[in-house]
């Protein structure tokens, strides 16, 4: 494939949507279910197999599916192009911040039992802490994979 054809392929992929109505209808039906499964995997990560990483990859897969089928321009409404890198930073910050918060409150790093939230017994506190950690991991993994995709397309 020479340079010109490659540019045409890339431009068509980034800007123009795929015109097949079958693909459109399938993607529109599929993406919300993938995102619901991703959220389920995240929220049930500490009861059942799953967790932050798998949930994040599922969410990223749904958005990459949108990017591949609708094109980069039409999928900006779901996940803008500039958002993934700051979201990854926020995710890492949530992870590290939860750990440091517990450390400041008297425990060791990531010791959720010491989180200074009043009115909660230690078991609930640990539940909340692991949810915060998983939230950070989910955000970080999701936005990193989306930004790898965007970066490979040169945008």
């Amino acid at each position, binding site marked *: *494939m020479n340079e010109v054809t*490659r540019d045409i*392929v*890339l431009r068509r*992929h980034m800007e123009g949507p795929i015109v097949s109505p079958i693909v459109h209808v399938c993607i529109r039906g599929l993406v919300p279910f993938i995102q619901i499964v991703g959220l389920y*995997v995240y929220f049930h990560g500490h009861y059942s*197999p*799953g*967790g932050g*990483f*798998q949930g994040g*990859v*599922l969410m*990223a*897969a749904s958005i*990459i599916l949108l990017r*591949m089928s609708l094109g980069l321009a039409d999928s900006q409404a779901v996940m803008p192009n500039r958002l993934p890198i700051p979201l990854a930073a926020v995710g890492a910050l949530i992870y590290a911040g939860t750990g440091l918060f517990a450390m400041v409150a008297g425990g060791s790093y990531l010791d959720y039992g010491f989180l200074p939230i009043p009115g909660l017994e230690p078991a609930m506190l640990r539940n909340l802490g692991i949810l915060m950690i998983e939230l950070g991991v989910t955000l970080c993994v999701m936005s990193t*994979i989306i930004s*790898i*995709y965007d970066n*490979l*397309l040169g945008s």
Partner: protein
Amino acid sequence: MLPWLIEIILFTVLIVAALVALGLRNLLAAVVTLSIFSFMSASIMVKLGAIDVAFTEAVVGAGAVGVINILAILLTSRKSAD
């Protein structure tokens, strides 16, 4: 019914998928075959009792790696040179 029959079947499909993916000239078909390989490996891990590892393998191997391979094909060429 033999207890290890299902593992034999899964391993056979796994090895056949890996060999086919190595031999294919059409790289898009090779990516699809690699997805089959990944799914079979996830099934073997379910059979071995490691549900969490199997989940990760299925999500990453069939989802993320497949997409990135397809992108690499889109950026380079569709056919294998050698």
